[in-house]
């Protein structure tokens, strides 16, 4: 059984708590990292290519080159995250050796293991993992993830999948809270989630770790929508550096996450941002093109 009181786990979740109400921005260079920090990013995610480019260029997407990560760590004082491929325990160990502040075991990169995710309990560095539903979230937490994000559809500029995943997780949490305790094992079977974690969520009505949103955020309104649907922070990937004026848009999205309960303020923040990234129609993607289907 997982022990949420374990100091090692509490310290991991502690950093996730500090990132609440913030925006984590994808960056590929030190210059972009500086722009993100100046705009008010709570953390940056170092990667080789933003998801929209991974999608456009194809090929195998891997962990960011080590020199890139170091360059970004040198450039900013905010936490630096980096992505490893699903199940790539070696990339994960290398990122830990580089002392990144958080590892994202991410479906945006090409999976290294089609069956297993990393056993995250064995690491000192905290992990964030994506989910499409509560079962997936609890499987990742069972493996030791200290932070959950909805997958959305990375690099699409389309918020529809993030909304689907956020709503699904919230609905499934609410459902657990009204079930009779005798129904929880059957529900755990249905969700394909660890029974003890299902019981924990049923009792507390929330996930045991923070829940952020990701995948398709392109505008301050998209970020506000994620917060309205219960996300506690927002990851923005291609939405910033694939837009016409990244610094201004980044600042506006930061403001929208802080002031999501104030539509007047978000309206003002949404003025003069230039062009957003162009988006994709999810219905026109083939199942193979859906990054969110990677992992289980």
């Amino acid at each position, binding site marked *: 059984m997982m022990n949420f009181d374990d100091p090692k786990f509490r310290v991991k979740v502690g950093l996730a708590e500090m990132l609440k109400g913030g925006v984590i921005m994808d960056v590929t260079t030190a210059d972009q990292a500086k722009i993100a*920090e100046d705009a008010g990013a709570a953390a940056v995610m170092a990667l080789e290519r933003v998801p929209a480019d991974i999608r456009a260029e194809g090929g195998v997407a891997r962990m960011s080159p080590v020199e890139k990560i170091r360059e970004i760590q040198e450039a900013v004082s905010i936490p630096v995250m980096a992505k490893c491929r699903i199940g790539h325990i070696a990339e994960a160990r290398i990122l830990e050796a580089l002392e990144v502040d958080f590892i994202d075991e991410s479906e945006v990169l090409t999976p290294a293991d089609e069956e297993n995710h990393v056993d995250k309990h064995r690491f000192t560095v905290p992990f964030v993992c994506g989910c499409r539903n509560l079962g997936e979230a609890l499987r990742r937490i069972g493996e030791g993830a200290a932070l959950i994000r909805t997958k959305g559809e990375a690099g699409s500029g389309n918020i529809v999948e993030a909304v689907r995943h956020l709503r699904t997780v919230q609905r499934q949490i609410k459902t657990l809270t009204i079930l009779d305790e005798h129904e929880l094992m059957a529900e755990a079977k249905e969700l394909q989630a660890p029974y003890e974690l299902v019981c924990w969520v049923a009792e507390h009505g929330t996930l045991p770790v923070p829940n952020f949103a990701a995948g398709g955020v392109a505008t301050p309104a998209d970020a506000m929508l994620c917060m309205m649907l219960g996300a506690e922070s927002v990851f923005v990937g291609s939405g910033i550096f694939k837009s016409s004026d990244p610094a201004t848009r980044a600042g506006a999205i*930061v403001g929208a996450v802080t002031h999501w309960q104030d539509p007047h303020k978000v309206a003002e923040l949404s003025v003069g941002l230039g062009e957003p990234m162009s988006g994709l129609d999810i219905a026109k993607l083939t199942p193979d093109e859906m990054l969110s289907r990677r992992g289980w």
Partner: protein
Amino acid sequence: MRCGVLALQGDWEAHARVLERAGSETIAVRTPEDLEASDALVLPGGESTVVLRLLEREGWMDRLTRRLAAGLPVLATCAGVILLARDVTPPQASFGVLDIAVRRNAYGRQVASAIVPVRLAAGFEGPPTMEGVFIRAPRIERVGPDVDVLGWRGDAPALVRQGRIVAATFHPEMTPDDRVHRYFLHVAGGLS
């Protein structure tokens, strides 16, 4: 007494929960107007650069500077300590009302974050130490003559008081031990 919690970014909800449990009326402070409605203020943990950007961009600086000069009681944790410190290394703008020198991320990156006992000064009821949750924590490297040290991590001051400012480089809001919050409410005049 109404205690505001700066709710721009970070773990402000955890502070609000502890304060409410301790019996204080608590409001989330998201605008300079909310600040006017607060008799005391908590500067929570989070990223100090983010909070500073938002304060600058949204026109808080003059008003908050005035309230601090007028003796607003403040509880600052982690990033909040950096915002109040007189000297910050590596350099970053700050309000400078707390006469300490502080080094940001002094213990290193997240892999160096840890839960370490904080030894308390005489005067606190209960156990002589409390659990100190240090997350990418700053370290206080100098304290001025008007600053009382109330808790230590090893040899380094981790909990200090100057007048009606109480500052912790760790996160008392992340433990069930609410002595720091109760002490602050007492200092601020909201709890007898």
